[in-house]
């Protein structure tokens, strides 16, 4: 298991020849599955003069592009390798996809009754070779006397997992809704 901000954010991205492409900006996935697969990699490029098949009139600085995950050749400990040669990569739209950093991390988590729980500190991903899946929402500082509602959620999860220590991650499958306008993630009612 890896945490996005801790392990992947700003990780260097290179092509198969080791040419620097940029750094990891975000990960995109579709909402709806219990543990959604990461479908695209957002890379921040220092500059580029093409976007997908299109050559630009003039280069642009500091742009973040979304590459389909099929172009990822390897997820190594210190870099992500894209198959192919820079800058000849396909680009996909972020339409209809959620972004881990932009839409989930640092956003407000609320329960099904609208009670504020805490902001999301990180997202935990399961890595299986070059496949990444969104597994859990990570909350730090749960050792603080946070709201009784958050405590209830975590205690239920601990009992369910029969864990010896209180869990401080919330499975992604419990997230009911991601409201991008309000920057709020809502949990499903806990049974």
């Amino acid at each position, binding site marked *: 298991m890896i945490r996005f901000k801790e392990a992947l954010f700003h990780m260097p991205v290179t092509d198969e020849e080791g040419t620097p492409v940029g750094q990891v900006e975000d990960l995109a996935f579709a909402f709806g599955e219990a543990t959604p697969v990461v479908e695209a990699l957002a890379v921040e490029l220092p500059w580029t003069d093409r976007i997908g098949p299109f050559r630009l009139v003039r280069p642009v600085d500091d742009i973040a592009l979304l590459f389909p995950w099929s172009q990822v050749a390897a997820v190594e400990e210190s870099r992500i390798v894209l198959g192919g040669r820079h800058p000849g990569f396909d680009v996909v739209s972020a339409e209809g996809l959620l972004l881990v950093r932009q839409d989930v991390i640092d956003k407000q*988590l609320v329960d099904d009754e609208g009670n504020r*729980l805490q902001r999301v500190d990180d997202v935990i991903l399961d890595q299986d070779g070059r496949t990444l899946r969104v597994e859990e929402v990570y909350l*730090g500082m749960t050792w603080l006397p946070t709201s009784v509602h958050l405590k209830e959620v975590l205690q239920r999860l601990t009992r369910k997992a029969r864990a010896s220590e209180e869990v401080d991650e919330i499975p992604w499958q419990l997230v009911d809704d991601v409201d991008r306008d309000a920057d709020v993630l809502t949990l499903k009612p806990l049974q």
Partner: protein
Amino acid sequence: MAKEKLTRVKKSIASGRRSFLVLIAVLGPGLITASADNDAGGISTYSIVGARFGYALLWTLPLILISLGITQEMGARMGMVTGKGLGGLIRERFGLRMTAFAMITTLVANFGTTMAEFAGIAAAMQLFGVSKYVGVPACALAVYLLVVKGSYRRVERIFLVSSVVYLSYVISGVLARPDWSSAFRMMTVPTIRPTTAFVFAAVATIGTTITPWGQFFIQSYVVDKGLTKHDLAYERIDVYFGAFVTQFIAFFIIVACAATIYAKGLPINDAADAARALAPLAGGFASSLFAFGLLNASLLGAAVLPLSTAYATCEAFGWEADVDVPPSEAPIFYALYRAFIILGAALVLIPGVPLITVMYVAAAVNGILLPVILVYTLVITNDRGIMGDHVNGFVFNVVAWVTVVVMIVLTAVLLGFQFLGIG
């Protein structure tokens, strides 16, 4: 033709009337923040500045006015465009670690100011002949209960209305017959004295007016009022007017103290000394009048500051924050709020604590820590991803960055003077 003209005229009259009504409706956040600026720290800082330096620092007031107007407008604009408080915006833009740094800075600055408010309460009580050991705990409890059990907004409005007492400085300043030509000349000609005391006074004068808490407060207030970017034009009027009112009062506090205390070479070591500035107006009642104004200012600050600090911190970390829910549902919010009040009041009760010095130093601490919050604000207000078309213009960026640089330089000079043992 006549009918068309009549329609146009009617429309312009109707829109004018609507404009006026909208202006009245949005008036508040800027004026309220400005009035809260004239708190215990403000009154004591301006009094000390006038009493120890005469008119020498008046030239800073027009510059502070411009800076205050612009920084407050930025805060209001962020709130109206995003619908979020500054704590939440900082978290979403900068992430957890940078947020923790910002909030720790704010907590330190705000705690100092909260102590200053209770020091003001203690000083005012002493002028009324009430022991601080009775007055401060009673006021702390009253402020807490009024906010938690009563209506915070109603309490705020009561204090704001009674802020009209600051006009006593305007009258006293006039009755003291100051040297107006000298005062206005000193307002336009910078005076710089290379001494620790002068630099400290400059830092405190700026820090008591443009504060970290003020940035959080105005933004949360416009969000609370439900103002949107469609109200921007009107809210600017409110903010600029509020900034003017703050500096208008500050001017007369300084002039009144300069014309009475400084002119006679009298010391200013406590609130009783500062009250002499109101003697031209109130004669033998100067002490009581000053005590009333100081108490009013301090109670407003003591009510506003711990609450807005607790709200801002909880918003940054996503914790529940609401005075209408029981403490078990918002434990960190209540813990912060109570801690600020209890500790702020308790420290002031330590025997021998120099009350007016506490207020003065707290203002300087605000000034020293201000650049941290302003830098966050500047990055956000220049981020098109957050502000869209409402990013800062060139002039705003220049004024705000100059403010940051000036405060950093002044702080460095102050520390340098201390290190070198200068004046």
